């Protein structure tokens, strides 16, 4: 019944996404203190059209890209100009200039960049940030640190070009100067709703209050009114919800939260009833809220920013310096540079007529460092029925011991479980052991053994990790009784063949692996698999997880 009454609104509101996006931009233009907006959409005509909307804003647009260097952000030395003129020439940083910042491919932004931008947003109430999130998977997205500081988030998926109309950005100067008051009942109400939606951060209701005030200013009011609250809830709270609020009373038949209905309301009763506001939010909650929440949790766990690519020249064991261009935070070898420039001084002085040291960009020597990247231990745990009967608990114990050691070595860990017909990523790479342990403890056993799928999932993780600069090792814990093939069909023969095939793929990619046999008796097929993988094979010693973890440590080396 709840669904039925929600449906019509949903349709109504789906076409409203566009209106919301435009409104959010207007509110940001009125009050940049709202931080900004995340626009989740693939590049396409709809996004371009929205982009055209905020091109009409008075401030110039300054594009940031995920690989932007600190020099470009905060300003720094303009090396070429400095060397050419012999005078200090510095570049102003992008963040120091007024403008609307647009972060393209926001899902690719590193933790470091997100932290810097978050810090810049904290101290800056004149500029706002538009993050264009092109994430394809639910767990891909803007860094939560940064997302937290942006008031709005709009998902343009499902908006088609025909639906939206162009809105001219009306002149907002007047609205910007308007002082709007928000009475205490309204603040109370917004806070209450945030709580009911399970939003813990206090920033959310703060943004809601600001958004309500900006909306009132937009319509030339000097007091916050019901419809302002409504739009504020929809824009700032809906996407932060972590739970669906309980429905205390049956929903009224037809209260669509559009303007007509609120205009009928007595101007004096300022606040809408809570129920109505909640409904406005509820209607905006995505159908797959729970999936999204899980994905969000997983994303939080990703944590440590040290997973970034490690090709840099900033640290590690020093190597001889090389000729090169000074770009993107590369460190210059001053002594080497001076040494390279010295022989040419007389000639250059004569040629240019300038006195003093003369260095050309070609003299620059760049420092190089070699370093080891962080290690990632991917556990592929067999939680199938056969395994559960035999020794799942022991395998869990072994993994826990390995985790403790991973902690000591500052390794990252990741957890993949396979049971039934498919493999599941329980935890993306993280250093948070508490989380890993929680996920592991709650791992149930039962079902078939899709060994090949499990290895495939672990392999995907490993490839992904390699691209992020980690060095992955896959630890497969299974009893080896593969009976589900890659396509999910129960076929023991094909399952074994698939497993061997995946093993060949892994080996051809040079993945390090360990196979731990958790069966009651060592399984010859598993030894065979380990050989194909070029991996160490360890039968799990009975009830002696400590010994297992010792041997794994020895194999991994240190």
């Amino acid at each position: 019944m709840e669904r039925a009454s929600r449906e019509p609104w949903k349709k109504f509101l789906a076409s409203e996404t566009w209106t919301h996006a435009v409104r959010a931009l207007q509110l940001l233009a009125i009050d940049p203190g709202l931080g900004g907006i995340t626009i989740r959409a693939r590049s396409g005509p709809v996004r371009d059209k929205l982009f055209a909307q905020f091109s009409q804003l008075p401030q110039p647009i300054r594009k940031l890209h995920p690989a932007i260097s600190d020099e470009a952000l905060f300003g720094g030395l303009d090396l070429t100009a400095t060397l050419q003129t012999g005078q200090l020439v510095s570049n102003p940083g992008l963040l120091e200039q007024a403008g609307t910042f647009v972060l393209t491919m926001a899902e690719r932004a590193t933790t470091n960049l997100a932290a810097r931008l978050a810090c810049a947003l904290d101290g800056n109430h004149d500029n706002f940030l538009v993050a264009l999130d092109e994430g394809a998977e639910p767990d891909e997205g803007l860094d939560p640190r940064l997302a937290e500081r942006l008031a709005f988030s709009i998902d343009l998926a499902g908006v088609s070009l025909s639906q939206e109309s162009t809105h001219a950005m009306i002149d907002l100067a007047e609205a910007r100067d308007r002082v709007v008051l928000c009475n205490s009942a309204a603040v109370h109400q917004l806070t209450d709703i945030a709580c009911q939606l399970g939003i813990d951060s206090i920033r959310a209701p703060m943004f809601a209050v600001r958004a309500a005030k900006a909306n009132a200013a937009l319509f030339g009011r000097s007091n916050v009114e019901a419809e302002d609250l409504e739009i504020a809830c929809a824009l700032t709270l809906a996407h932060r919800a972590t739970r669906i609020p309980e429905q205390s009373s049956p929903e009224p038949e037809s209260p669509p939260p559009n303007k007509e209905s609120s205009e009928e309301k007595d101007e004096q009763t300022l606040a809408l009833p809570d129920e109505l506001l909640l409904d406005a939010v509820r209607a905006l909650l995505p159908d797959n809220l729970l999936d999204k929440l899980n994905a969000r949790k997983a994303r939080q766990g990703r944590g440590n920013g040290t997973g970034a690519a490690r090709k840099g020249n900033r640290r590690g064991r020093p190597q001889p310096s090389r000729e090169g261009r000074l770009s993107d935070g590369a460190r210059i070898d001053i002594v080497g540079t001076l040494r390279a420039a010295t022989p040419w001084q007389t000639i250059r002085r004569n040629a240019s007529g300038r006195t003093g040291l003369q260095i050309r960009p070609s003299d620059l020597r760049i420092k190089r460092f070699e370093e080891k990247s962080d290690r990632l231990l991917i556990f592929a745990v067999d939680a199938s029925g056969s395994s559960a009967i035999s020794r799942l608990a022991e395998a869990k114990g072994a993994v826990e011991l390995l985790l403790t050691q991973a902690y000591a070595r500052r390794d990252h860990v990741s957890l993949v479980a396979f049971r039934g017909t498919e493999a599941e990523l329980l935890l993306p790479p993280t250093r948070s052991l508490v989380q890993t342990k929680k996920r592991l403890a709650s791992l149930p056993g039962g079902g078939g053994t899709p060994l090949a799928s499990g290895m495939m999932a672990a392999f995907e993780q490993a490839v992904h990790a390699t691209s992020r600069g980690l060095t992955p090792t896959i630890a497969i814990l299974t009893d080896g009784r593969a009976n589900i093939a890659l396509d999910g069909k129960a076929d023991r023969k094909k399952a074994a063949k698939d497993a061997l095939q995946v093993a060949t793929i892994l080996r051809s990619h040079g993945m390090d692996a360990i196979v731990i046999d958790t069966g009651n008796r060592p399984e010859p097929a598993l030894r065979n698999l380990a050989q194909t993988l070029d991996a160490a094979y360890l039968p799990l010693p009975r009830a002696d997880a400590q010994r297992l973890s010792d041997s794994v440590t020895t194999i991994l080396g240190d």
Partner: protein
Amino acid sequence: MPPFPFSAIVGQDEMKQAMILTAIDASIGGVLVFGDRGTGKSTAVRALAALLPKIKAIKDCPVNSAKAKEVPDWANLATKKSVTVATPVVDLPLGATEDRVTGALDIEKALTKGDKAFQPGLLAKAKRGNLYIDEVNLLEDHIVDLLLDVAQSGENVVEREGLSIRHPARFVLVGSGNPEEGELRPQLLDRFGLSVEVASPKDIETRVEVIKRRDGFENDNAAFMLRWQAEDAAIRDRILTARKALIKLKTSDKTLNDVAELCLALGSDGLRGELTLLKAARAYAAWRDDSALTRAHLRAVAPMALRHRLRRDPLDEAGSGTRVARTVEEVLG
């Protein structure tokens, strides 16, 4: 816009208390604030900066020297005039390079003038003040190592690019982070004097109050600052009074005994726990304007001084705060 006034922060008493204690006695060694996003960690740190009493320092000295003879040679100051400056609070951003933290050869000068000059880094700037690291648990390991080394020795040594510079670097480390996003190495944990855990307030009334104050702060900044000015000044005065009272405060052998017993019972590593607990308790007594140190003071500061020093099972999910509280009950009765 000036930072949000410290006294206007609603609730979060333990965090505020911990920050005040380090302001009274800098040798306690900093505060670590762990909590979720949006609990007011950064706000409190920046508010503290405005609250701290001003210090006397030599004008333009890169390491904020108190006396003229302490100014390092490489600073090349023409005049050494003493002026009153605000206590420095320096942000150490994530992803800061080693050069920026320790200081390095001044590339601009080297390339344009051929001078070999030292460009001081963040550690120099933070001397006698606070070094604030947001998201400290995401800081790269090599920067953490470097900070540890400097925090321990109180001296920053730069040996690179033909430079050999050392300068004193005593500062208070203030770190904040979200425990969900990764843990901090125990070596660094131990280096923080106090640690507190914050959460956003759970009841509606408090949350409403937080938002109202924030709204007031942004709406009518001047009036809001004026409203809280007196209270901030009162705290500042109390800190100054407490600093003086600290010198005269008596510590009985019995209390020392209690401190040692407590730390033994908890099995905290090393002696840093005892020292910090004692210092924090003394600062707390001075803040309360009490003339002697008692068990009540120990009880009040034990959780924040010890909770991060327990030898901890990395897989243990329960907070160590409760363990400290239980042991305090057992030992002090």
